[in-house]
C-alpha cells in the first residue's frame, strides 16, 4: 500500500514533506530539467528584497570539510522583477511556491510582506531574519527575540498567507527566539539558516571569501541543526521545517523524528540537482519497507 506522504504546513497541504531551501534552488525554473517540481512538497525562492541586489564581490563560495561557506550577499532580482519575470513560471507549476524575503528595516520587511501577500501564485511567505538591522547599527534581527518579534508582527499585520519565520542558529538560545516568533504570530518556523564561518588562504594570508565571513551549510552542520530542531519542537506548538545538511532520505527522516513536519534540502541540490525529488522518493520507499503508512506518525516520534 502506498503510504500517506502528505503533511499540512500551516494550512498549506503538501504532497510530501520535501521542500527546497532558499538560495539553493533559484526561482524554481533553474532546476526544471532535474526535478519534477510536482514530485516535491513545495519550493522556496531565493531571498527577495525591495530593490534588486547585485551581491558581494568574489570569491563568494569556498568548500570546507564536509560543508561550504557562501557570501553571495543576498543577490536577487528584487520584488518588481520577481513579479514580472519569475511569477509567471510559478503559475505553471502545481506545487506551492514560498517566497523568501528580507529587509534592512522593519518597514522594508512589512512592505515586502504586503506586496507578496497580493501575489496569488505565492502560497506562503518565509521571512529571513538573519540580516543586519541597518537602523540598529547592524545587530542581526534574528539574534534578538524582541527585534525578531517586531519583524514578525509587522509582517503578520499585512499578510494572511502562511507566515514562516526562518531562524538563525547563531544564537545562545534558539528556543527563546522560536517562542518570541511564535508569540508574534508566526504560523511556522524553519531552521536552521547558515552558521557564520570563515576560511583562510594561508599562502595569500587572506580570507578566502571577499566578504571575510560567510554562511556555513552542508552535511557538516547537521548535528547542530538536528539539535536545534529537537529543542524548538519541544517548546512550540506551530509546525517546524527542518533544514541543515540534509543529503538523503535518512537525514530527512531524522529531522522528522526530531519534530519537523517538513524539511528543506539546501546545499545537497548543488551536489545533486535532483536531490529533493530523490529524497522524496527514497523517503516513501523507507516508509513502505518499514511498514509506516503515514509520514505524519513519525513527526516528533523520537524516543528519548
Amino acid at each position, binding site marked *: 500500500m502506498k503510504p500517506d506522504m502528505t503533511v499540512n504546513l500551516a494550512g498549506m497541504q503538501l504532497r510530501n514533506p520535501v521542500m527546497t531551501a532558499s538560495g539553493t534552488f*533559484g526561482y524554481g525554473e533553474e532546476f526544471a530539467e532535474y526535478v519534477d517540481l510536482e514530485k516535491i512538497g513545495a519550493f522556496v525562492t531565493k531571498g527577495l528584497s525591495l530593490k534588486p541586489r547585485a551581491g558581494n564581490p*568574489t570569491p563568494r563560495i569556498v568548500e570546507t570539510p564536509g560543508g561550504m561557506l557562501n557570501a*553571495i550577499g543576498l543577490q536577487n532580482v528584487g520584488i518588481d522583477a520577481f513579479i514580472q519575470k519569475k511569477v509567471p513560471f510559478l503559475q505553471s507549476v502545481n506545487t506551492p511556491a514560498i517566497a523568501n524575503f528580507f529587509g534592512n528595516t522593519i518597514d522594508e520587511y512589512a512592505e515586502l510582506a504586503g506586496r507578496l501577500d497580493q501575489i496569488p501564485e505565492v502560497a506562503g511567505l518565509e521571512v529571513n531574519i538573519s540580516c543586519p538591522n541597518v537602523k540598529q547599527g547592524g545587530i542581526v534581527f534574528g539574534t534578538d527575540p524582541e527585534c525578531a518579534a517586531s519583524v514578525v508582527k509587522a509582517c503578520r499585520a499585512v499578510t494572511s498567507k502562511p507566515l514562516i519565520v526562518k531562524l538563525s542558529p547563531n544564537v545562545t538560545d534558539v528556543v527563546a527566539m522560536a517562542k518570541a516568533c511564535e508569540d508574534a504570530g508566526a504560523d511556522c518556523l524553519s531552521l536552521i539558516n547558515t552558521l557564520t564561518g570563515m576560511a583562510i588562504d594561508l599562502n595569500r594570508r587572506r580570507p578566502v571569501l571577499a566578504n571575510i565571513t560567510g554562511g556555513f551549510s552542508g552535511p557538516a552542520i547537521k548535528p547542530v541543526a538536528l539539535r536545534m530542531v529537537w529543542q524548538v519542537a519541544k517548546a512550540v506548538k506551530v509546525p517546524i521545517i527542518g533544514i541543515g545538511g540534509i543529503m538523503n532520505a535518512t537525514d530527512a527522516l531524522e529531522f522528522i523524528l526530531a519534530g519537523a513536519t517538513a524539511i528543506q534540502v539546501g546545499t545537497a541540490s548543488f551536489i545533486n540537482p535532483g536531490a529533493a525529488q530523490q529524497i522524496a522518493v527514497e523517503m516513501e520507499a523507507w516508509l513502505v519497507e518499514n511498514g509506516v503508512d503515514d509520514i505524519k506518525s513519525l513527526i516528533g516520534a523520537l524516543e528519548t
Partner: protein
Amino acid sequence: MQFTSMILSNAEVSPGYWRMRMTAPPEFASAAPGQFVMVRVNGAIDPLLRRPFGVFDVGVHIPAQSGAMTQPYFEMLYRVVGKGTAMLSTLHKTDLLDILGPLGKGFDLGADDEEKLIVGGGVGLAPLYLLAKELVKKSPVRLFAGGRTRDDVLCITEFERLGVECYTATEDGSLGECGLVTEALLRRLDALDGKATIYACGPHGMLNAVANIAAERGISCQVSLEGYMACGVGACLGCVAPGHKHSPETPDFRCVCTEGPVFESGELKWRD
C-alpha cells in the same frame, strides 16, 4: 543532463596534466565548444562539491569487432591542483563518475571568412581543442599556446593534426619563444590583413592582456572564464564575474555558469 559515465582511459599526458576519456549518452555529441561539465569526484562528502572541467573533445568509439555497439564519449584535460583533481587522477578504466553537463554557453563560431586566433595558457587549452576542431572546417586557424615551462604546453600535436598553425611560448624558454604568448599574437595581428576573431582561455592575467589587445585594435574576442562554482546551473550565484559596467558602487555581475563561461571580452570588466 545528468548521467553516470564510465571511464575509458585516464592517463598523464605531461607531468601533472591528465587526459580522461569517458562514456557519454548520444545527446552529448551536440556539446558546443566551450561548454563544461560538473564532475562529482566521489559519492561521499569529501570533496563535497562537484568540480567544473571544460569539454576537451567529444567523439564516438567504434569497436574493432564488427557488429559491436558504438560508444559515444567525451574527454577532459585536467591539471592536478588540489584534492579533487588528485582523486580524479587515481581513477581507472571502468570506474564510474556522476557527470552534469554539457553546461553553459560555449563559443560563437563567428563568420567563416576570417582568420581565427586561438590563445591558450596552460590547461586553458582544454576547451579550445573542440573549438579548433569546429573552426578548421571553415576558416584558417592559428593557435598561440603558452605556459610556464614546456610541461605546461599541452597537446600541440593534436592541434597540428587538425591543420592548425601553432605558435608556442614559455616563460622559461624551454619550448618555443621565451616570454609571453601574447607577443606572437601581437605579431600576427600586425601582419594580418582582413578580419579576425580571437578566442582565449587561460589564467586571468593572460585573458586580461588578450582582452586589452583586442579592445585596442577593435578585434572581436571571446574569452572563457573560470569561477568558483557550487552548482553549475545558475542557482547558487557563487560563480559570478564583474561585467563591463561593474564598479564597487554600481555592481554588475554576470553568472559564469549560465551566461558564460564564454563571454565577449567587451562584456566584462578588465584592468587596463
